[in-house]
């Protein structure tokens, strides 16, 4: 399989994985720590959506499903396909608890990306493609243009019933 | 295929991040911006250690980095509170 196509497919898969799990675990609903609220208000002041701002702030302030996706694919690349994801899941759980977070999103993301990597290795997409794909996916959320991405995240949150109730 | 793509390795990327962090620390004025650029410089520093394959040193540096950042943040917050309190007491003195 061509390398570029593999990276793009991996990016789409990991984007869907971490956005769905983070939204389902209630990241846009409320800021878990106080720093997330500051970042969310700032994104809203620059013309974005408040729920998307809370989502981005929560990703910055504690390792959530995005970090679980990246670290599980890195551990699968260096350690081995099923075991690396499980080891990454337990380490992400400890890191989550150090940041005063319950830790559901990180471990769920790590375990689900392990299953996806295990299934995708049969069609020729390795874990190294998933590392690059996850970095590309996080750049589309955090690095390009914050008002547009936060409005997109707000729409997804409203569709899944997790939009914020804070003013 | 392109000759300049071979230049991009972990070493050159880390050196670039280090230089950008140093420029940010020198150029920006506010102390909180300086702390943010210092966190960026730490990333480049750990990348440079990893690229020389001193892995145990890299783990120690990665563990000690947030401690240094937190100590600097405590100092900045205390200094800011003291300065604001001083200005407020001066204004009160003028008005009273």
């Amino acid at each position, binding site marked *: 399989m061509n390398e570029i196509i593999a990276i793009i497919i991996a990016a789409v898969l990991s984007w869907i994985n971490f956005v769905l799990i983070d939204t389902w675990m209630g990241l846009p609903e409320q800021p878990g720590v106080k720093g997330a609220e500051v970042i969310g208000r700032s994104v809203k002041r620059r013309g974005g959506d408040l729920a998307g701002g809370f989502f981005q702030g929560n990703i910055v302030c504690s390792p959530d499903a995005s970090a679980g996706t990246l670290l599980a694919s890195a551990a699968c690349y260096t350690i081995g396909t099923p075991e690396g994801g499980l080891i990454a899941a337990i380490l992400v759980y400890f890191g989550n608890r150090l940041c005063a977070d319950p830790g559901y999103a990180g471990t769920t993301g790590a375990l689900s990306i392990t299953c996806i990597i295990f299934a995708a290795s049969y069609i020729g997409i390795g874990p190294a493609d998933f590392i690059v794909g996850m970095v590309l996916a996080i750049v589309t959320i955090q690095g390009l243009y914050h008002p547009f991405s936060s409005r997109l995240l707000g729409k997804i949150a409203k569709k899944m019933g997790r939009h914020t109730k804070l003013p | 295929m392109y000759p300049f793509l071979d230049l991009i390795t972990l070493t050159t990327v880390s050196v670039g991040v280090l230089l950008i962090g140093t420029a940010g620390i020198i150029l920006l004025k506010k102390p909180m911006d300086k702390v943010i650029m210092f966190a960026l410089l730490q990333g*480049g520093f750990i990348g440079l250690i990893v690229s020389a394959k001193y892995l145990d040193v890299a783990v120690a540096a990665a563990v000690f980095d947030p401690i240094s950042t937190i100590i600097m943040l405590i100092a900045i917050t205390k200094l800011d509170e003291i300065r604001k309190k001083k200005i407020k007491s001066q204004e009160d003195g003028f008005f009273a």
Partner: protein
Amino acid sequence: MLIQILGIIVLLMALRTLFAQDRSERMLYLNAMSFGIAGLMALYIQTPFGAIIAITYFIASTISSNAIAYSIGRVKNEIILDE
């Protein structure tokens, strides 16, 4: 090929961190850059200890981002003594 893509992303995010206007915007770019550096380390060191280093670095950088974002809320506009 993979390392080159990650390196370009890391340098781009570092430059955007330097030239951002807002302070919390800087935090978002910094987080994206640390994702890239963790991926680069895991791709460069292809042994199990490389994954341990990537996980340790990423969680440590997240803790320091947490502390910085918390004290951005407390220190709104600080006073600089310039002369």
